[in-house]
């Protein structure tokens, strides 16, 4: 695979094992700069495992074994000695919102503070406001920045998580089934946010809602039982011209 300038992430022969159990086998794909790359697939297809391999969260899990290569901007992630600096480039939004038991403000300010890039109080205030605005949350929380983030509603917490992920000025944003605990209206608002964000960041969107991938993703990969069945332009896949019949069946709602 030749590394070209507009490829943000290149994955080659990625396999993931938990002990003897194979969660993902021989996945090769590329994610282009500033695209929304959708990953769809039923439960246990290895989507979350894939994301964990990209930002090397396997280091936290002694039983998780990753082989193959992941390159970001052409540099192999395994060659990073400071894995924390690598992770700072990648924002992550989890399926269930994780409002850390800090104030709303501190939740968003955490990443710059950790990285030591917080700057002056005024700079930080501005950053917090900008991130909250971009996550479509500012208007709802601007009067309670000092309240505990973990006391916000589920949908608000999920947007707080997005604001927090943005606060580290990531180059890549990975969302794992972000709408699982969010109402449809908020989901739509977050989707609009993502469409805007893709001007600045590269987005990997794992979703259990097939239509969400259709709405947002430029290209989509279909994972099934640890196998990457097919990758194509979202339009192609959803127009019924997927090459693999299993993809058609899944998109058509026949299983999963």
């Amino acid at each position, binding site marked *: 695979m030749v590394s070209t300038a507009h490829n943000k992430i290149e994955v080659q022969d990625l396999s993931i094992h938990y002990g003897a159990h194979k969660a993902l086998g021989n996945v090769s794909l590329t994610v282009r700069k500033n695209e929304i790359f959708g990953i769809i697939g039923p439960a246990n297809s290895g989507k979350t495992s894939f994301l964990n391999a990209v*930002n090397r*969260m396997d280091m*936290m899990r*002694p039983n998780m074994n990753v082989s193959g290569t992941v390159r970001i901007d052409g540099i192999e992630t395994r060659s990073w000695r400071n894995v*924390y*600096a*690598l*992770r*700072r480039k*990648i*924002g*992550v939004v*989890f399926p*269930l919102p*994780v409002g*850390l*038991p*800090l*104030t709303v403000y501190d939740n968003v300010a*955490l*990443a710059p*503070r*950790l*990285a030591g890039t917080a700057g002056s109080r005024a700079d930080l205030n501005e950053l917090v406001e900008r991130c909250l605005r971009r996550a479509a949350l500012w208007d709802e929380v601007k009067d309670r920045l*000092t*309240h*505990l983030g973990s006391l916000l509603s589920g949908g608000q917490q999920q947007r707080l*998580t997005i604001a*927090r*992920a943005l606060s*580290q000025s990531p180059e890549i944003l990975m969302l794992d089934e972000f709408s699982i605990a969010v109402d449809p209206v908020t989901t739509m608002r977050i989707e609009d946010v993502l469409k805007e964000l893709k001007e600045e960041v590269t987005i990997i969107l794992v979703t259990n809602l097939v239509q969400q991938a259709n709405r947002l993703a430029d290209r989509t990969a279909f994972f099934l039982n640890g196998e990457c069945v097919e990758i194509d332009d979202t339009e192609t896949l959803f127009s019924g011209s997927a090459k693999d019949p299993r993809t058609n069946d899944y998109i058509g709602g026949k299983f999963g």
Partner: protein
Amino acid sequence: MATASDARDKNWFIDKFFQSLMFVCGISAIVFVVGIFLFVFKEGLGFIVNDLNVAEFFFSPKWRPTSLHQPTYGILAMVAGTAAVTVLAMAICLPFSIGAAIFIAEFATGKTREILKILIEFLAAIPSVVWGFIALSIMNPLIITTFEVPMGLGVLNSALILALMAAPIVTSIAEDAFKAVPDTYREAAEALGATRWQTIHKVVLPAAKNGLLSAGLLGVGRGFGETMAILMASGHSINIPTSVFDSFRALTATIAAELGETAVGSPHYQSLFAIGIFLFFITFLINMTADFIVRGVKKG
């Protein structure tokens, strides 16, 4: 509407039965606590009403209950000694215990962790009197030779022993507090690029704050309540300690050592119960403080 579907079935009666049973258990706990308190209070009451000179009781360092011409009942020296030892013991115990708890909960895996936990449980199982024995036969000569002081029994010895005694329980409560912090917090922090230490320092510690506080207060409670080991390690002489090598006498140890020798109902006997009431009061105050702080923390 009493229809057939509204009939009280077996599960309904079982539920009622267990509810009543739990109610009785809950109430009995309260009954015991109140009963004990009333007993202690009743025994100390005569002294409080007849002989207690409040100023003398709290502010005199002289505890001479058996003096023939003028018995004095001052607990100041004992309070000062007990408090000093508790503070010093916690200063030694908390950093080590919380450090150990962080290691066990956040870093150790597999065998290391199991072995550590077993060792700590083993430490918790050592009876109080054995600790007293260690204080007398190991710590005492050690302190004498290390610091070149004439006597090794006193504040330092007691604090070291107390720190060792409190360490297992403080460690395991602190470890529980860390375990209660959801892993999702850690993963969220690490995904933000937090190092292991940053994760612990910025996310896990604040989230475990309340649990750590109760661990600390448990240690303080232990300090005020421990009797046998302190009786042996303190030197047991009535004295306001001015250095860590000074001997002192603990409130609890006084009760333990003197209660058997007094005539039931005598002022001396009753004064010991007054000390008991005072200890009750201190414990109550510690718990209230804990409650207060925890609530303040929650409000954020």
